Structure formats: C-alpha cells, structure tokens
C-alpha cells in the first residue's frame, strides 16, 4: 500500500533493489561466519576435555595446540576404573540425582496444587515466604545444616544429601503457575462424580500436568548431578561420594592427575548432553521457567 509522504520500497529503482539484496546477502554471510567462529571457540573446552581423555598420559600437559593425540588410547579410562572408585561415584550420582528429583517433584507438585487450586487462610503468606526463601544464600545455611544432619544422624547418607535441598522454592513456584491454568470445572466434575480430593489429585490432576512433571524431573536431576557444595559437606567417605565430589577430590591437589580427571569429566558430562538432544524442549522450557541460579 502506498501512503503519501512515506517512502515505499515499491517505488525504488530496480538497480537499487538489487543492490539492497546483495547487501543483505553479504550481511547474512558475515554474521553467519561470525557465529561459526564463536561456536568453534565455545566448543574448545568440551573438545579439549574429550580429546585429552584419549591422549597418552604424558602428552596431556605438553599438547600445546595439537588438536589430535599422537595415538588415541583408552588407558586413562582403564586407570579411572582401577585407581579410583569411579563406578561407585557414577552409581551414587545416578541414585542420588534420581532420588532427589523424585522427592522434590512429588512435594513440589502436591504443594503447588494446594497453592493454586484451594483458597485458605495463610495461603498468600505461605506463598510469599516460600518465594522469599529463594533469596537465602546457601552459604548462610551450611554450618547449621551440617550441625543439624549430625544431630539427625544423616551424615554420609543419601537422605542427608537429598532432604535439605528438597524444599525447592522454584519447583513449587513452577508447579503452582502451571496448575493455575487447570480448569476448575474439570476438578468439580471429578468431585461431583464422588472422588475425594486425593483421588481427584491422582486421577485428574496428575495426568494433566505430565509435561510439567517431566520438565521438573529432568531439571532437578541435572541440578543434583552437577551440584558440589552440599554433597561435599555430607560425604567424606570415597565410597559414598557422587561424581562431583569424587572429581573435586582428584582436582584439589597440587599435582592434578589430569588423565583421570579428564576421563572422569568426559563420562560425567556425556549423559546429560545425550539426554539434551532427545529432550531439548524439556530442557529449554525448564531453564526458561527456572530463572534464578540453578547452582550455587
């Protein structure tokens, strides 16, 4: 549409249009090239980790900028299995992450349902208190939590690692927001059919929030899998440690055994990279809703 007084692309000369198109094409090429360079820079640490884990032990330090090892070897992985309890660490991470994700998803789903679909006194104060708790730095709590789990006899135990982290403010906030969109009519229909509140929760609410459940589950599992601070305080025995604490114990030495560390790091990173390619939507949705610091 031609509006008087407004320059329109329609009245430009053909050569000018061609010139513009050329310019556009050049810009696309330049910007894309910039992103190619950036992507390579960003891939360096992950590439270096993986390739270092395949280098002969003596070469890891002196590799310079050599992008490929002189000979690829699995020796580092063999030593990782024989010199340190790596399989134990991996199993501990797997079980603790799963346990943490299960417990946290359950209590956040139940709590989020109460905060979104019922009216009761204290609902808003409770909700605000939970949101405010997001501001508490974990480092304020480490001393008193440490003394508390000693008193409760939970040192070196999975429960001691999981329970203190489970009252997750963002988890319950996420479920509450998600459940606000559930229709009240649907719940009332279940009530009219004679279901009590708990039956209704299991048979009507849960099936309708499945996507939120899987998003939260993946995110919490990732969060625990990558967490260092609290497991570092709970576990001192090598056989109970998760991967992060185990790898940290190998790194926190003046002469680091980079052969073991790189092999261990590669194996620890792989699972969630693979999962990410299968479940990208859950990851990005989760991160987007998640916001505040996934780890502290």
């Amino acid at each position, binding site marked *: 549409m031609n509006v008087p007084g407004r320059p329109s692309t329609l009245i430009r000369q053909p050569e000018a249009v061609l010139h513009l198109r050329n310019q556009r094409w050049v810009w696309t090429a330049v910007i894309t090239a910039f992103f190619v360079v950036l992507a390579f820079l960003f891939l360096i640490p992950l590439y270096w980790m993986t390739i270092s884990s395949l280098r002969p032990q003596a070469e890891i330090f002196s590799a310079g900028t050599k992008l490929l090892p002189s000979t690829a070897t699995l020796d580092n992985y063999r030593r990782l299995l024989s010199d340190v309890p790596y399989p134990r660490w991996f199993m501990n991470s797997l079980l603790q992450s799963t346990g943490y994700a299960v417990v946290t998803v359950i209590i956040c789903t139940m709590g989020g349902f109460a905060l979104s679909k019922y009216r009761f006194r204290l609902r808003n104060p409770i909700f605000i208190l939970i949101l405010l708790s997001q501001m508490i730095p974990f*480092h*304020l709590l480490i001393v008193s939590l440490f*003394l508390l789990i000693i008193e409760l006899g939970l040192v070196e135990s999975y429960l001691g690692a999981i329970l203190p982290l489970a*009252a997750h403010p963002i988890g319950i906030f996420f479920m509450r927001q998600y459940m606000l969109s559930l229709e009240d009519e649907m719940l009332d229909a279940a009530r009219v059919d004679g279901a009590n509140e708990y039956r209704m929760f299991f048979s009507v609410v849960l099936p309708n929030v499945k996507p939120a459940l899987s998003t939260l589950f993946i995110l919490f599992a990732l969060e625990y899998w990558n967490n260092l601070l609290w497991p570092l305080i709970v576990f001192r025995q090598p056989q109970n440690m998760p991967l992060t604490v185990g790898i940290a114990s190998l790194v926190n030495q003046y002469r680091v055994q980079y052969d073991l560390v790189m092999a261990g790091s590669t194996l*620890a990173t792989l699972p969630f990279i693979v999962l990410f390619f299968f479940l990208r939507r859950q990851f990005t949705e989760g991160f987007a809703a998640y916001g505040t610091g996934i780890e*502290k």
Partner: protein
Amino acid sequence: MSQIKAFLTSRKIAPFVFLAPYLILFSVFKVWPVIQAVKISFTRFQGLQNQTWIGLQNYEALLSNPRFSMALRNTTIYTVGTLLVLIPLPLILAVLLNSGRVVKGTVFRIVLFLPALTSLVVVGSVFRLLLGRDGFLNSALGLFGVEPLRWLEVAGLTLPSLILLAVWRWTGINIMYFNAGLVNISKELYEAAAIDGANARQIFWRITLPLLKPTTLFVVIISIIGGFQVFVEPFILFVNGESPGNSALTIAVLIYRTAFLSFQFGPAAAMGVILAIIIFILSLLQFRYFGAFKKEA
C-alpha cells in the same frame, strides 16, 4: 472412624495435607537453619557441644579481617565484571540470532547452550588445564606472537580467568532468556517501524532495547545474586580455593574454608549473615528502583 476420614478428605483440610511434606522440609531445613545461623554467628564454638555467647565479637573481628575485606572486594569485582560482559554480549547475540540473518541459527543456539549442561566441577577442571602455563590458551595466543601469561598464578589475572570461565558457562543461558523476551515483542511494531523508514540501528535502540527492559532486569538480578554467591569456580580453579595472594578469594569460598577447613563456625556464620544481608539489600534496591515485580503479585 468414618468421621475422621471425612474430615481428612474434606476440601478444607486437603490443601494442608498436600502442603505438609513441603512445609515440614521447609521448616526443618530452611527456616530453622536460618534462625540457627544467626544464633551461631553470636557464639564461639569449643568443640561441637561447647558454645558460648559472645555477642557481636565475630562481626567485630570480621571488620578488621583483611581476608574478609579482600573477599568482599573480589566478589564485587567479579560480579561487576561478569555483568559487563554477560548482559551486552548475549543480548546482541540473541538479537542477531533472531534477525533472520544467521543461516542454521538453531545449531548455534544449541552449541552456545551446551556449557549450561556441564558441572562447574568439570568446567573448573578443564579451565585449569586450558589456562595452565603450557596450556592450550597460551599456546594458541603464542601463534599470534603473544608471550605466555600465567593466568592462574598472577594476582592480576585470576579474576579475569574466573570471568572468562563465567562467560563460557552462562552466555548460552542468557541468550535463551533474551530470546524469550524477544519472541514476545510484537512483529507489528517492527513492520510499522520499517514502513516509517527506520533503519536497523534505530529499530534496535528505539524498539528492541526498551521493550527488552524487563528481561534485561531479570537477567541483571539473577546475575548479581549468582555472582555474589560464586563458589565452585574459584574453589576448583585454585586448589581448595586458595588463590595467589587471595586474589580470587570470594565470600562463599571464605565461608566454606572458615567453616570446614578451619572449623570456625561462629565467624563462618557471621559471614553468611552478612552475605545474606548484601543479597537482600541488592534485591530490594532492584525491586524498588526498577519495579521488577510491579506487574505481578
């Protein structure tokens, strides 16, 4: 019996039953430890059992503790440094990725996001290798004639090393936040601006940037809160967080070391209280001056 059952399944009681597990864990592992932490910050420990009330002595000692002021300084520099890079860079990258001028944009989004999936322990270990004296970074810079730098051994380079690590780790996530903000800006605004003859630069400054303000604020807030709590990166990059001349000592590292390497619980708790107050004040200032939650609640 049936009366009790009817009571427990009633619509009045059900929400409390649903909330109970969360609230119990919340009280035991959040509320109670906060109260305890404040209490511990006023006490001196001799062994785990023997505690004496010493008033404000732990706080007074902190005022004259050079390590604590060093940690405050470093943490502030680190936070400001990361903000200076991790706000403009991801914002520009997100705008470019949304401009339709990037071929295969999704691939770049994925690559830049991958660091977000890695454990900071792993990231710290890999960067310690990359930044070593004969490491990849020095070798690569050497190709351009740059003399090798002692990234992790010289006081002036330790914080830049930490910031470099942070840029690698968080750029992709921040792109995702900015992208979420960009998608919400109505296409019609851009079309109207194009009809009015606005060029790309004008559109960016007059439309994109002002409308991204809420997103930018959100990213600034979480970056500040996260920055002040930075722990794993310096803890792994330097052995047990012990950096040359304490040049990369952060508040969180100092709290951990005070509590679990020196076993001085009182001073550690006092530092925790101060850290909490700092974060609380910064959050309040932001809510107040930028009204981040005005639309909600």
